[in-house]
């Protein structure tokens, strides 16, 4: 890119891993995330998905927003912002959180890393610096720094991931429990590793200064050669997270600050994330509204569905009767045929008062330019579709 590029400020930023990732992006299948050039897939989405489930694979999370929240009041500020009790979070641990508007509508979800008693890292899918600034107002000693461009991060997921990290020389990595943070010396700097991820399986996230990103990539890929390492993109991530039952913005929820219509956003209870809302905390943003909703019961509940047949129920409306004659009771937010579970799965927003009755999906699908419609029975699943024991085992099984 020449310096007199008139569009310089408009062009997508390149991740520190780009020199390596671009070589492997055989299909040039790029999209964008938070202003970064970002792989939709590298070679083939399904192939990458199988690598995640059966071997190991890397997902470039540099575009994910990262904020350092520092200072004596950092904990108090975050604790008022999120629905979970952060005071219970131990040093070098990570926790999954959501935060809401005053009315208890979901602003976003993310993870909080406790790096020191007065230092936390918050990660989330889209920029929330304005919200963080609003949330810090009135606290004396807290500063928020956007460190998105200052940290290179790689998500490394799959059953052989632990073995590869051991091979790479990260001694004791197998002792990391889910949501632990460990640190390793790396070329005179520190490599931070957290046992976290978005695939519902064994996996880690690696955090390094951008200057050492390529060294990290090279060492990881050389250690992983015999373990089937492969990069994966957005498409495979979306499949894996759906099997794990994780929510996605613009699929399961609308960020409340970006919706125009009243109640076109969601609450944690509607998203089946009530377990993240800790009413033993005397105050957090949205508490009053959420308590009312808890008493009243959410209007909709995000539900896991197992749907008969093999036609993905993408965008389907749901009904309480086979003829789809009565009032519709909900809609599918994400759906796929799951190769790992061998089931036709979906996440759906269903009216809470209709959850006990029959649920039928009206599925539209296409075969060689012809459109067909079918109605399929849905069964509610209480557990995540994909949740292998190795995701929780410490140490994880070896390969």
């Amino acid at each position, binding site marked *: 890119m020449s310096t007199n590029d008139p569009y310089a400020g408009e062009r997508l930023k390149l991740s520190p891993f780009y020199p390596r990732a671009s070589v492997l992006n055989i299909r040039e299948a790029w999209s964008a995330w938070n202003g970064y050039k970002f792989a939709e897939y590298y070679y083939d989405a399904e192939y990458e998905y199988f690598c995640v489930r059966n071997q190991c694979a890397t997902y470039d999370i540099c575009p994910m927003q990262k904020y350092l929240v520092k200072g004596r009041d950092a904990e108090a500020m975050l604790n008022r*912002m999120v629905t979970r009790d952060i005071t219970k979070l131990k040093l070098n641990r990570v926790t999954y959180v959501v935060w809401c508007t*005053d009315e208890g509508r979901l602003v976003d979800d993310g993870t909080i890393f406790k790096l020191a008693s007065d230092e936390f890292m918050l990660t989330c899918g889209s920029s929330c610096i304005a919200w963080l600034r*609003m949330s810090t107002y*009135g606290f004396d000693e807290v500063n928020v720094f956007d460190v998105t461009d200052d940290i290179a991060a790689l998500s490394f997921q799959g059953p052989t991931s632990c073995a590869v990290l051991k091979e790479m020389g990260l001694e004791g990595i197998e002792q990391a429990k889910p949501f632990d943070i460990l640190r390793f010396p790396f070329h005179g700097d520190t490599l931070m590793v957290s046992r976290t991820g978005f695939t519902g399986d064994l996996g880690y996230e690696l955090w390094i200064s951008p200057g050492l990103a390529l060294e990290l990539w090279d060492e990881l890929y050389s250690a992983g050669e015999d373990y089937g390492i492969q990069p994966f993109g957005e498409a495979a991530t979306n499949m894996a997270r759906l099997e794990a039952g994780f929510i996605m913005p613009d699929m399961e929820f609308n960020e409340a600050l970006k919706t125009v219509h009243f109640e076109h956003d969601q609450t944690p209870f509607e998203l089946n994330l009530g377990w993240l809302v800790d009413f033993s905390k*005397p*105050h957090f943003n949205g508490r*009053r509204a959420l*308590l009312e909703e808890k008493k009243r019961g959410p209007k909709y509940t995000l539900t896991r569905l197992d749907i008969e047949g093999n036609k993905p129920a993408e965008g389907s409306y749901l009904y309480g009767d086979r003829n789809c004659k009565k009032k519709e009771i909900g809609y599918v937010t994400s759906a796929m045929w799951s190769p790992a579970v061998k089931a036709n799965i979906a996440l759906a927003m269903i009216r809470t008062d209709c959850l006990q009755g029959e649920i039928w999906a009206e599925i539209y699908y296409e075969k060689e330019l012809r459109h067909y419609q079918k109605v399929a029975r849905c069964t509610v699943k209480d557990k995540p579709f994909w949740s292998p024991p190795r995701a929780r085992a410490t140490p994880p099984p070896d390969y």
Partner: protein
Amino acid sequence: MSDYDSIIIGAGHNGLVCAAYLARAGQKVLLLESAEAPGGLAANREFHPGFKTSVAHVVNHFSDRIASDLKLARYGFEGSSNVTLVTGLGREGRHVTVDGHSVTGVEQGDAEAYRRFAAQMRRFADALKPFWLKTIPRAAPGKWSDMSTFARIGLKLRLLGKDDMREFMRVAALPARDLVDENFDSELLKAVLCWDGLIGSKMAPRSPNNAVLPMLYRTAQGQSGTPGSLIEALQASARAAGVEIRTGTTVDRILVNPGQDGLVAEGVILAGGEHIHASRVVSSADPKTTFIGLAGIDNLEIQFTNRIRRLRCDGFVAKLHLALNGLPEFTGLDRLNGRLLIAPTMNDIEFAFDHAKYGEYPPEPVMEIVIPSLQDASLAPQEKHVLSAHVMYVPYRPKGGWNKQAKAALYERIIERLSGYAPGIRDQIIHAELLTPAELERDYRVSGGHWHHAEFALDQMLMMRPTYEAAQYSTPLPGLYLCGAGCHPGGDLTGAPGHNAAREILR
């Protein structure tokens, strides 16, 4: 265990009104005031040995309903329903005086136009008057419970008749200048008529948002009188109703505890550390002070706190108090009663504002002058007098901040300006006190030193005053209520916020 039914923070006139109503309804009420005497901005205070006055220097439209409910006449407030005279001081003693019905000192055409204009403004003001004593319902989807208030406003306007209603709709959002330009020729008269749309606000004659409503608010018929006698009477009425008043007592924080459904305000913590419990806390301190300073942001919601943060609260009025060794002489004026304005043209007002907008104080300030010692002889030693002036526009945050030199320079400009109309005044001054908005903030605990506690303009009026979720006197923090000028309808000595808050609490 609660020691009181209600603790009221601040014994300004609204705190007193609210306390009196609550106590008359049988509540056990404690009123806490940081200053040594009740009254807030309307309290008489000695600024030089033997010389007293209050920051707010005239009572123009105190609610007659409240005056009669609280029997203020019996307690010594001799309110009059006559409008206080306003005299625009002209060059070479050619003054213009209005009394709400007629004007003197102008050509025949303007005099007739004024009679028509004043009558129409009174009709508009009368139509709006009931709503200053109403709670404005929240405008939220699905909450149509008290929409009757809106329906009644609509009906009141319909009852004005077709012509008046249309005219009201047309002028309601006009800048002050356009309204008076349409009607009059005399520059001085126009400046005088603008004044009540502007004083206390961050607005000049050409500013939109919104001068006509404040004008009508102030045209509403009510009681006029002296702040001193109003505060005395309110205090006596409140005490007679059983209100316990503690002065010299500063509330450091509102006591907030976890309750069944979340946090609840349960009392106050005094500056000395003492805890006092009550079933509710009612604050007449301004909204910023109440929420950010006293309740604490960590007890409030994020978006709500940020709406309070962005409340426009910068004051633009400075206060001059002069102790004089005799009655000042204004060229061509034989009676000094009522309000005297030094604002010869609307441009003078506008230019004074232009400087303040950019953080400077005006070379030629405009001002409203009252000689309080004429109404109340106890304010000055015999034969001596007090002059009180509201000086506009003086920024709360001037470029470079306030310091001795800046104040001295401003003082010099004010006296220079004053001398243009009262040539001998400089030699009569025994002592002078000039309070900038920053000093009013410090001494009277009012954010920005703002006349209305928070800017009185469309974006902060009615169901947006001070902001939604706190516009019906209750707040997002259960147990905490507002009752000061930062609530609907707004500032001035009217008693309306205190009255409305009490009604909501007793509902």
